């Protein structure tokens, strides 16, 4: 479970999130809101990329401020632009990066690499230069690079915003098939209709926190 | 050295290499080798990243060139280039970046002319001081002829100083805590 207690976040004297308290335990959680409302800042708090100005964020009891390493092992993070998430020039090397950071041995790294490439039908791309993949393949590689680290939670910040419709749907299917708890920041409302919980963020506050049936109409009203 | 420092160093290595891919500017009717944009990378690395990270960026760049990566303009690379006539200039790059970084960051509030002057000092004066004697010896040209050849490059280098000054100041305003 990810717990936020009285969390506020400011950049200098510019407040971005105001006193948020939440417990995230459902398996499929969506976060929606206008541009600049604070969704990315909220997501970044969950794996310690951003640290709260006041209040605490904890993941399975580990404080993001004090136990960053334990948090990072539990919470994977997928960014909007896979170009900035793929660290290494070759697909296989990039998949290995996170696993090496976890201290896994060569054999395990090779096995997990093969597994994930087979799962997403990318075996033939193992030694392919990452920057030559298509947009959809790149995002799938970015997600794979997180999944091979076997996190319990996956936070995704608008992972489909840059993709075409077919690839949006493909990524949505991939996400729905995951065993992990996912916290998915998105503008694609049709993808989250059967989620367990939807959090609407407005000007740095939780404006609505409910089922999709309630939260999505609320959000549409808010944006109207 | 934080993760961010490593990534910035890599970025300026890449930037210096990418500048080598820009079409060179031919001049003097093609009687002299073309001017390339690459030393702009040196000036930017120093003025944006400061002495330590800027110097490391160019040190890594030169090491990659020495290992044979074709990162110099015209796709040149390898140990031989460093031993060649322009080798002194290239080997001077890490020092130039460090000098520029030291000066520019120590005087962060200097006006645009002073910043430009400091970039010119490291990017032209220091570079020529180290590069020209090398060229004179390796090319068996003697100091006077080497100096005469290099005069042709000063206008281009001054343009790069202006660009580096404007970009470095712009970046510092956009990202105060690079």
């Amino acid at each position: 479970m990810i717990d936020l207690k009285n969390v506020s976040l400011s950049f200098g004297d510019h407040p971005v999130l105001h006193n948020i308290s939440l417990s995230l335990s459902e398996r499929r959680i969506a976060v929606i809101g206008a541009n600049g409302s604070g969704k990315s800042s909220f997501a970044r708090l969950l794996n310690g990329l951003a640290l709260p100005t006041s209040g605490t964020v904890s993941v399975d009891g580990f404080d993001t401020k004090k136990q960053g390493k334990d948090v990072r092992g539990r919470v994977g993070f997928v960014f909007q632009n896979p170009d900035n998430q793929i660290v290494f020039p070759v697909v296989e090397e990039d998949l290995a990066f996170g696993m090496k950071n976890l201290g896994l041995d060569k054999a395990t790294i090779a096995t997990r690499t093969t597994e994930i490439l087979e799962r997403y039908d990318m075996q033939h791309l193992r030694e392919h230069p990452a920057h030559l993949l298509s947009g959809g393949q790149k995002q799938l590689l970015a997600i794979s690079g997180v999944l091979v680290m076997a996190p319990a939670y996956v936070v995704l910040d608008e992972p489909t915003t840059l993709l075409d419709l077919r690839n949006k749907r493909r990524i949505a299917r991939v996400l729905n098939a995951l065993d992990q708890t996912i916290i998915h920041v998105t503008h694609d409302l049709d993808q989250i209709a059967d989620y367990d919980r939807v959090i609407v963020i407005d000007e740095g506050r939780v404006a609505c926190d409910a089922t999709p049936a309630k939260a999505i109409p609320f959000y549409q009203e808010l944006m109207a | 050295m934080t993760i961010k420092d490593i990534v910035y160093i890599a970025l300026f290595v890449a930037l210096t290499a990418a500048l080598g891919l820009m079409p060179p500017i031919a001049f003097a009717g093609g009687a002299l080798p073309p001017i390339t944009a690459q030393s702009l990378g040196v000036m930017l690395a120093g003025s944006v990243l400061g002495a330590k990270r800027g110097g490391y960026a160019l040190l890594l760049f030169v090491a990659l060139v020495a290992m044979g990566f074709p990162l110099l303009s015209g796709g040149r690379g390898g140990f031989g280039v460093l031993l060649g006539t322009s080798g002194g200039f290239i080997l001077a790059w890490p020092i130039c970046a460090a000098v520029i970084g030291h000066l520019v960051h120590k005087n962060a509030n200097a006006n645009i002319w002073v910043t430009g002057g400091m970039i010119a000092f490291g990017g032209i004066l220091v570079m020529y001081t180290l590069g020209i004697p090398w060229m004179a010896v390796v090319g068996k040209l003697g100091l006077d002829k080497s100096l005469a050849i290099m005069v042709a490059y000063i206008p281009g280098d001054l343009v790069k100083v202006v660009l580096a000054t404007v970009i470095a100041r712009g970046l510092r305003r956009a990202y105060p805590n690079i």
Partner: protein
Amino acid sequence: MLDLYTPGTSMLHRMSPGPKMAALAIAATALFLQESLLVTALAVVAILALYRVANIPMKTALAQIRPLMWIFVIFFAVQWYFSGLTLAAYVVLRLAALILLASLVTLTTRASDMIDSMTRALRLFKPIGVNPDKVSLAISLALRFIPVLGRIATEVREAQKTRGLERSIIAVAMPLAIRAIKMADDVSDAIESRGYRS
């Protein structure tokens, strides 16, 4: 793109990068210290023979020196004018020999093998505070960033074209620089979130 490596199975291909680099350094230094035109010319012939050994076509060998043709021409002209034909030939041949030799190493060695040996060699410098893992991370990132920068430059130029600004260097360079820094910030977040400890 950055890898000039030409696949092959010759003795030179199979040699490991460390000794190859060392041999290059020694040969280049020796070439520098001697001053005879005859020896230099023989060296060029010997190096071209090594290209044969490595099964690399002469066309590829020539391609290594073609980008430097202008420099050769100027040096040759200046030297000839001031110091005579012999010295001019010596200077230019020596340059050509150095470049051909260094290129031979590059052509017969994979970039990744070169990075690996460099990372290994860097372990020697650990006592003075060099961290080989960080250096190899920086190298990998730098090689990845080069094509990305090219792409950002194209995008910015196209965007400025619609405003008629594509020829203004600052109007292209400034947004390019800002986007490049933004990308670097995002990449460091990604590295951090994937558990890299600095």
